[in-house]
């Protein structure tokens, strides 16, 4: 019987099959960027997070430094509480500001960190005090319309 040739072919098949899975995980997916490096948790509270999703990137100066780990709603202050996991090789001052930004005109939302000037650095479990909410298009338009209406009223009153 040519059992050994069958074994060889099955071995080749299993090897390239697993190779394809590895290719999908490492080259197509983002397993490689999932470094097993240590992270630390930081909280940030926002009045409105817009369309931010869990696992959205946290960027500083455009570089991904962490990810959004969890989003919850605080039932007492009526704010959104986001938990950020930041790679522990990146240290930030305690007065770092967190903003919710949009990549491109219609892109996904992410959290941008702007480093402050405090000498002490953020530690695990601390909170980012200075935050800026997502820009909501409807609010922006209504503000614009109200200011236009106010201008019109002033112009009439001046006559």
């Amino acid at each position, binding site marked *: 019987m040519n059992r050994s040739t069958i074994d060889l072919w*099955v071995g080749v098949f299993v090897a390239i099959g697993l190779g394809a899975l590895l290719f999908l995980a490492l080259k197509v997916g983002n397993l490689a960027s999932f470094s097993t490096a240590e992270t630390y948790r930081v909280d940030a509270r926002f009045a409105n997070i817009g369309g931010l999703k869990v696992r959205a990137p946290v960027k500083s100066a455009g570089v991904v430094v962490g990810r959004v780990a969890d989003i919850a709603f605080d039932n007492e202050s009526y704010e959104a509480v986001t938990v950020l996991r930041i790679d522990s090789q990146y240290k930030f001052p305690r007065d770092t500001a967190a903003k919710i930004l949009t990549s491109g005109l219609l892109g996904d939302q992410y959290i941008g960190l702007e480093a402050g000037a405090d000498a002490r650095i953020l530690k695990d479990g601390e909170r980012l005090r200075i935050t800026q909410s997502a820009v909501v298009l409807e609010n922006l338009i209504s503000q614009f319309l109200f200011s236009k209406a106010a201008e019109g009223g002033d112009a009439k009153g001046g006559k």
Partner: protein
Amino acid sequence: MVTTTVWRLGYASRFFVYLLAHSGTALRRFRLTVREIYFAGVLSLIIILVSGLFVGMVLGLQGYDTLQRYGSSEALGVLVALSLVRELGPVVAGLLFASRAGSAITAEIGLMKATEQLSAMEMMAVDPIARVVAPRFWGGVLSMPLLAALFSAMGIFGGYLVGVVLIGVDEGAFWSQMQAAVDVRNDILNGVIKSVVFGVAVTLIAVFEGYDSVPTAEGVSRATTRTVVTSSLAILALDFVLTALMFTGGN
């Protein structure tokens, strides 16, 4: 008619449980299963690889044509990778596997039944389900995820060939946007789970139709046809259910 269908369904469920309970031989004498992996998996390689390449190339062409209208042809890698890993890889590989390997399994077991080889085994106190059916079942179940992964990988390579080499989409953007958008757990692992489910469904239908076929030439040909039709429908229906479970839960 309905009674017959329900009857067969009940018999198939009992057959499945019996098959799982008597899989010991197939796993202990793994040689038997390796032989079936050769017939179901290795011999399906050519059709899977070539179809994957062409599906990926077509996706590359069509995706580029649509995306460049919105000035986002760099997202071609994302489009090709996500559609292959999530849907087309498991589904098309499953359909090809059903017609290439599933029909062969049904015909083989059906012919064994028609020529009374299965009865002869029972006479020799060898359980035909443990000796003949279980190795084919496990061979198919183990082959299917590997074939689907190969299909997806080959398709992404085909999309790369058309998008980057032929049309000239930027190579760095093609891969980096793909890596940013494809999640290992949400996309790739769910694709693998889909292919395992399809593998179980297709192979179970194939071995059951073979084992339950009417032992005549006409009965075997009917059983083979039913295998391809039923397993294709099962793949598409299961795909809808699995997609609904996996990809809409987050929103």
